[in-house]
C-alpha cells in the first residue's frame, strides 16, 4: 500500500512528459525519491531473478533475443526499451509495468545496462545472472581506456548471485573464470559462448574486440556452452551443449550470430532443465529486428535498410555483413558521435560509392572516403534535404536503399520518413 502515492505521482509525471512528446527519465527519478525501497521490492518478486546484459556492442539486440527466447518458453518477461539502459530509464520502465500497489507480474527481468552504471545498479537490483558480451573500443571520450570498461563489467559480474555468462573470445572477458575461481566461492558459476575458431579466422576483420595489453592471452582452451559455427543471409548455425540448431537471425552478420549464441547460453543457464533448443529456435524465427539493426522500412514505393553504427566495431562488422556493395547508399553522421578518429581504422572496401553524405560530420566522413578513393555523390549536411536527394534517385534494382546512420541520425531519419514512434527513455 505504501507505494500507491509514489506510483500514481510517477505515472502522472510520465503521462505529462509523454504528452509533451518523447519519454523521460523524470518519472523514475521522482518515484526513487519518494520511495527509495520501491525498486528493490519490485524486483524481489521475479522468480528467475534479474539478468543484466553488459557489453560495448550488442546489448539491445541480445536483450531482445534473450527476451524472446524466454517468452518462447512461456515466461513473462520484464525488459527495458531498447537503449534505455541508464538508471532512471530503467526505473521509468519498471514504473510503467507495476500495479499501483507495487506488484509486478513477471517471472524474470532482463535489462540491458550501461557498463558505467552496472555496479551501482547491481546494489539495488541484485542481479542473479550477468551476461557480458564484449569489450570493444567505444566512446573513448567517456571511458578513455578499454580496460576501465572491462573492469566495470568484470567487477559487476562478481556480484551475480547465480550465473555469469561470458565471451570466450574476448581478451578481457574470457578472464572471468580465473578471476572468480580466485575468489573461491561456488557461486556464481561461469559459462561461455563464442564463435568457432574457424569462423573467426575467416572473418575479414576478426571480431573487433579490444586488445588486452595488461594480461597474457590464456593458452588453455575454454569450452563454450553455445558456439556459433556459421552464418549466412538466412540465419546462423549454433551448437548448444553439443546439439546443433539452425536459427533465423533478426539481422545479418557475424556479430548478430554471436549475440544469438550469447542469448542461447544465457537462456540455457537461467532455465536449466526447462531449456528446450527447439523452443528457442522457434522464438528466433518470429523475431523482428531491433531499431536500426537491419530493419527494412517503407520509403514511398521502396524500402530503406537501416544500418546503424555507434563506433568502429559496429560500423566495421555491419559493413562486413553486407552481401555486396550496396546499390544506393546514404551515410548520416552528426555530432552525436563526438570523436570520429576511428574512421581511419575502418576498412571501407565494402562500399564502392556513397550517393549522399549528410549530418554535421559529413565532411569528416567524406574526407576519410577521399583518402580511399571512394566516390561520394553529394554532400548535403541537412538530413531532410539529403533524404529528398535519396528519394529522387531511381528505384534500385535490389528494391531497397541502404542508409548507414549513427544513432541520432537514425532517430531523426525515422521521424522524417514517418516512423517516429519510439519512446526515447533516457
Amino acid at each position, binding site marked *: 500500500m505504501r507505494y500507491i502515492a509514489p506510483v500514481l505521482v510517477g505515472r502522472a509525471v510520465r503521462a505529462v512528459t509523454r504528452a509533451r512528446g518523447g519519454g523521460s527519465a523524470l518519472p523514475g527519478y521522482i518515484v526513487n525519491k519518494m520511495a527509495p525501497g520501491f525498486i528493490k521490492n519490485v524486483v524481489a518478486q521475479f522468480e528467475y531473478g534479474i539478468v543484466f546484459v553488459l557489453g560495448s556492442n550488442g546489448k539491445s539486440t541480445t536483450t531482445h533475443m534473450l527476451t524472446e527466447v524466454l517468452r518462447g518458453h512461456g515466461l513473462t518477461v520484464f525488459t527495458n526499451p531498447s537503449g534505455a539502459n541508464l538508471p532512471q530509464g530503467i526505473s521509468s520502465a519498471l514504473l510503467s509495468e507495476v500495479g499501483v500497489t507495487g506488484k509486478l507480474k513477471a517471472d524474470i527481468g532482463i535489462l540491458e545496462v550501461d557498463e558505467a552504471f552496472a555496479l551501482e545498479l547491481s546494489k539495488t537490483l541484485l542481479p542473479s545472472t550477468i551476461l557480458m558480451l564484449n569489450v570493444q573500443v567505444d566512446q573513448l571520450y567517456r571511458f*578513455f*581506456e578499454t580496460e576501465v570498461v572491462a573492469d566495470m563489467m568484470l567487477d559487476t559480474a562478481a556480484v551475480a548471485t547465480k550465473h555469469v555468462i561470458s565471451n570466450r573470445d574476448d581478451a578481457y572477458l574470457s578472464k572471468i573464470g580465473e578471476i572468480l575461481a580466485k575468489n573461491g566461492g561456488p557461486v556464481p558459476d561461469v559459462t561461455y559462448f563464442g564463435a568457432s575458431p574457424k569462423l573467426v579466422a575467416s572473418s575479414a576483420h576478426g571480431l573487433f574486440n579490444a586488445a588486452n595489453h595488461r594480461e597474457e592471452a590464456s593458452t588453455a582452451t575454454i569450452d563454450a556452452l553455445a558456439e556459433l559455427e556459421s552464418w549466412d543471409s538466412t540465419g546462423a548455425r549454433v551448437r548448444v551443449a553439443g546439439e546443433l540448431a539452425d536459427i533465423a537471425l533478426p539481422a545479418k552478420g557475424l556479430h548478430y550470430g554471436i549475440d544469438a549464441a550469447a542469448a542461447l547460453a544465457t537462456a540455457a543457464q537461467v532455465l536449466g532443465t526447462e531449456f528446450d533448443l527447439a523452443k528457442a529456435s522457434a522464438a528466433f524465427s518470429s523475431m523482428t529486428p531491433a531499431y536500426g539493426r537491419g530493419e527494412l522500412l517503407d520509403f514511398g514505393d521502396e524500402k530503406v535498410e537501416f544500418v546503424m553504427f555507434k563506433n568502429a566495431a559496429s560500423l566495421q562488422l555491419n559493413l562486413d555483413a553486407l552481401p555486396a556493395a550496396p546499390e544506393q547508399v546514404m551515410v548520416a553522421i552528426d555530432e552525436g558521435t563526438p570523436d570520429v*578518429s576511428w574512421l581511419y581504422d575502418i576498412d571501407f572496401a565494402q562500399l564502392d560509392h556513397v550517393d549522399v553524405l549528410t549530418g*554535421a560530420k559529413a565532411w569528416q566522413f567524406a574526407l576519410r572516403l577521399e583518402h580511399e578513393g571512394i566516390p561520394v555523390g553529394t554532400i548535403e549536411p541537412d538530413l531532410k534535404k539529403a533524404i529528398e536527394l535519396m528519394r529522387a534517385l531511381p528505384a534500385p534494382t535490389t528494391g531497397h536503399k541502404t542508409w548507414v546512420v549513427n544513432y541520432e541520425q537514425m532517430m531523426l531519419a525515422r521521424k522524417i520518413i514517418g516512423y517516429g514512434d519510439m519512446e526515447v527513455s533516457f
Partner: protein
Amino acid sequence: MSSSSSQSVSILELYPEHLEASGERGNVTALTARLERAGHRVDVVQHTMGRRLPKDADIVVIGNGPISAVRAVHADLTENAAALRALADDGVPFFAVGAGAELLGGGITLADGTVLGGVGIFPFSARRGVPRQVGYIVIESAHGTVVGFEDNASEWNLDTGAVPLGVVTSGGGNGNGREGVIAGSSIATQTKGPVLPLNPSVSDAIIRAALERRDVAYATSAAHAELDRLAAKSREVIVANVKSVFTTI
C-alpha cells in the same frame, strides 16, 4: 633538386598494435595519400615489439594508447632509444601524438606518482591524472589554424625555452593555453581526430622537412584539391561547433 624521387619515401610507424588507439593510423594514411598524389612512392615500415628498428627512415610516426599499452612497449622503446635519437639528430621529422609523444619526451608521471622514463627527443614531460579535456580543439600555429579532437587527462610541461606547436584558442591543450611542442621539424601534439588528414598544412610541413633532407622537391597539385577542399569544409564545421560538442569530464 631532382623533381621526383626514384627512391620511395619511408614512413616508420612505431608500435601500431599498441599506440594507435585514437585512429593515428590516419596520420600515416594522410602522409601516404599526399605523397602518392605528388608522385612519390611510399614505403610504410611498422615497428612492433621485438623487431629490429630500421636504421633509416624519412618520417617517424607514433600515436596514442592506454597506459597498459605504454607499459607494454616501454622496454622495447628504451632498448631502441639511442637509435631513435640518432634519427632525430639526423634531422628526420617525427610526428607524435598523445601517449606515444609522451614516451618520446622526457617522461610521464602517472597519477600514482610512478615515473616512466622517456626517450628525450621532445623537450617536455607529461603529468597524468589532471582533469580530462574532451572535445574539439583549435590552435593557432606557425602552420596556420590547427583543428582536431582532444581527449586526454595529461598536462604537458615544456622544458625552459621549448616552443609549443601553438596557442590554444578553444580547448585544453597542454593545460596552460599552449598546445604540443616542436623540436626542429618534429611535432608532438595531444590533438587527435586524427590530426593530419584535417590539417594538410601540417602534413605538408612534415613531408617538406623529410624530403628537403634528401634534396627532393615536393609540390601539391590538382590531385590534392579534393583532399584540401574536404579538409577545409571539415575544419569550418569543427570551428563552428567547437563549443557545442563537449565538456570537461
